């Protein structure tokens, strides 16, 4: 040990004598430096300033040095994190069935796992010749590996081939968009509450981990046969900017995007997802999209202003300073409450108030997931449900169950077509 120390002080001494900026692991480049302490010329210990100090200190360390040999027991202290538990399957472990739809950057097929004898969803991502694995796919895989929650879709397996990447997800019968089409005119208010609660439960879990979903829409909310809600499509989660045309040839829907982001704000946080939840909440109640813009951002804003009123500097200080705010394109509409727009909200106490709190124009005024789950609207959710651990479905103990829907789609029932 002492030998080492002696060598060390010799090294440190030698170091400074030759002024060794060249030897620095980081050169003189300043990319690597603490944000809070931004201005220092040197960036590596190789370039340190006072030799004398170091030599003395090194000596001091010798004196203070304990026994560093008996540490193997303590080594890898709580190394139990990050267990790569997802096995890497091969393509022939799954049988590809009919296509289910197009994701934001992939095609999803129904599939059958031969080994497990159950249905799965196969999300096929074509590898880009220029850029290899799309970074949305990389993001989605790494996020979903960390998120283990009853209301977030389960990623079972990842299959890599030279030309494509396939994510194997649990199979969930339908999504909220199809469910809404199947039951037009608004859902059973009991189911609205169960769906919304589960949506908030999954989203709150993400938000606690500082993950934003950023693409909340009915197509990305899966609904199982017994009414379990599963958040899906994390391809855009926590990326730098909001999804836009540049990510895919399809136009990304603007219906669930909050006004501050439509106005050009990039300084968003969990409030971004909450607006989307508010839109979905009201859509489940009324049966139709709350703010169905048809053309572009200004049309989308017009839809929102038309329903809830045009904001002014008095009602929303700073609104006119947003980058995309355009006074010329802004029509003036009288302010209205959400209950006036969607009267059916009044059928359930607290529903209108919760929706109002979610659909606040000013992002900082929007309610947080956790607070929303504690809102009086949810007072009739049994205690036995609230206390469930995150990985357990709310339908596990029979305290709640999916209610029959009042309205069925007339004509050729989709269910009969499937069966």
């Amino acid at each position, binding site marked *: 040990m002492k030998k080492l120390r002696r060598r060390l002080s010799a090294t440190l001494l030698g170091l400074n004598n030759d002024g060794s900026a060249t030897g620095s692991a980081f050169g003189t480049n300043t*990319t690597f430096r*603490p944000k809070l302490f931004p201005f220092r010329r040197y960036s590596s210990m190789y370039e340190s300033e006072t030799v004398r*100090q170091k030599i003395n200190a090194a000596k001091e360390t010798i004196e*203070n040095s304990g026994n560093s040999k008996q540490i193997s027991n303590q*080594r890898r202290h709580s190394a139990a994190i*990050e267990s790569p538990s997802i096995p890497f399957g091969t393509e022939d472990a799954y049988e590809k069935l009919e296509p289910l739809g197009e994701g934001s950057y992939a095609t999803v097929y129904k599939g059958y796992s031969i080994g497990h004898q159950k249905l799965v969803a196969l999300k096929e991502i074509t590898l880009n010749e220029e850029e*290899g694995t799309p*970074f949305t796919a990389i993001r989605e895989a790494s996020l979903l*590996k960390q998120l283990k929650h009853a209301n977030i879709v389960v990623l079972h397996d990842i299959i890599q081939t030279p030309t494509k990447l396939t994510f194997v997800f649990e199979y969930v019968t339908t999504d909220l968009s199809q469910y809404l089409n199947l039951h037009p005119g608004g859902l059973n208010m009991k189911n609205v509450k169960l769906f919304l609660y589960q949506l908030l439960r999954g989203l709150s879990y993400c938000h606690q981990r500082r993950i934003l979903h950023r693409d909340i829409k009915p197509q990305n909310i899966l609904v199982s046969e017994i009414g379990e809600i599963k958040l899906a499509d994390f391809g855009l989660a926590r990326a730098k900017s909001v999804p836009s045309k540049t990510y895919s040839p399809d136009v990304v829907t603007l219906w669930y995007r909050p006004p501050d982001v439509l106005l050009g704000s990039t300084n968003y946080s969990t409030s971004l997802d909450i607006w989307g939840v508010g839109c979905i909440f009201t859509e489940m109640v009324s049966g139709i999209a709350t703010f169905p813009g048809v053309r572009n951002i200004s049309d989308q804003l017009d839809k929102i202003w038309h329903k809830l009123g045009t904001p002014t500097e008095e009602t929303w200080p700073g609104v006119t300073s947003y980058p995309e705010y355009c006074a010329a394109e802004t029509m003036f509409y009288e302010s209205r409450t959400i209950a006036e727009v969607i009267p059916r909200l009044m059928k359930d106490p607290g529903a209108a108030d919760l929706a109002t709190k979610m659909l606040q124009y000013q992002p900082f005024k929007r309610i947080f997931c956790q607070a929303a789950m504690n809102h009086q609207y949810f007072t009739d959710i049994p205690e036995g449900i609230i206390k469930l651990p995150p990985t357990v479905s709310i339908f596990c103990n029979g305290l709640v169950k999916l209610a029959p829907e009042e309205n069925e789609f007339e004509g050729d029932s989709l269910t009969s077509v499937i069966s």
Partner: protein
Amino acid sequence: MSSWYFCSNEIVNSPSRSDGIEITAECRYRREGARFIMDVGNRMNLRYETVATGIVFYHRFYMMHSFKTINRLIGAAACLYLAGKAEETPKKCRDLVKAVRTILSERQMEAFGDDPKEEIISHERLLLQTIKFDLCVQHPYKYIVKFAKNLKDDRAQIEKVVQMAWNFVNDSLSTTLCLQWKPQVVAVSLLHLAAKLSKYNLSAAPDGPHYDHSKSWWQHFLPEINSDVLEDICLQMLDFYDKTDVGASNYNMISPPKITMKVPQSIPYRTL
């Protein structure tokens, strides 16, 4: 394989060892690879998190593969490429190849074959498979800042210690510390080392009436870590400086970029 942390035994008996590569050579490859990733990353203006993530991928990758079977330059390039995507600072593969070209000699570029881009992309696939899509990597940097915020005042001194510890973290990426210890542990150890070298005694800011004065400062952050662990990590770091020949370029596989460059005729005068 249940975690990305290894004991020293596992690190010593890496795949490269069974392939007949000496431990000293492996250490050098790791150091040079890390250094290469830093250089390319800096040239591409990537953030330090991205570069650090790329280096952690590199260390993990060569715990599963031998330096003999996978070329370390290509491996390193693929790691940086993937780190760019994982850290949401994606760079075009074409630009990466360009940056690599400016750093490597023509002879070294031969390792990348006729189509360097294709080579990097196919290695990215292998890398993803090897690291099993575990792409979220934490680094000691943020813990250094976090812990420093909870230390007792003399801000000027602490700032100095933090800056020094930060530089230690930069250099620690050239070692296998990230394969041995969680970033929190590396952070307290390198803060400890920096404080020792600055002859400054760190103490945690009392956080209430139950503050235990008998505990060492770091035990207020990581109660289960004792001084032997810290000592070991500091020694590894000092040992690294000791072994690394800093006078000469320790980067000898890579020649310094040429200063005199012939300007090709075809370069346009203005960018339109």
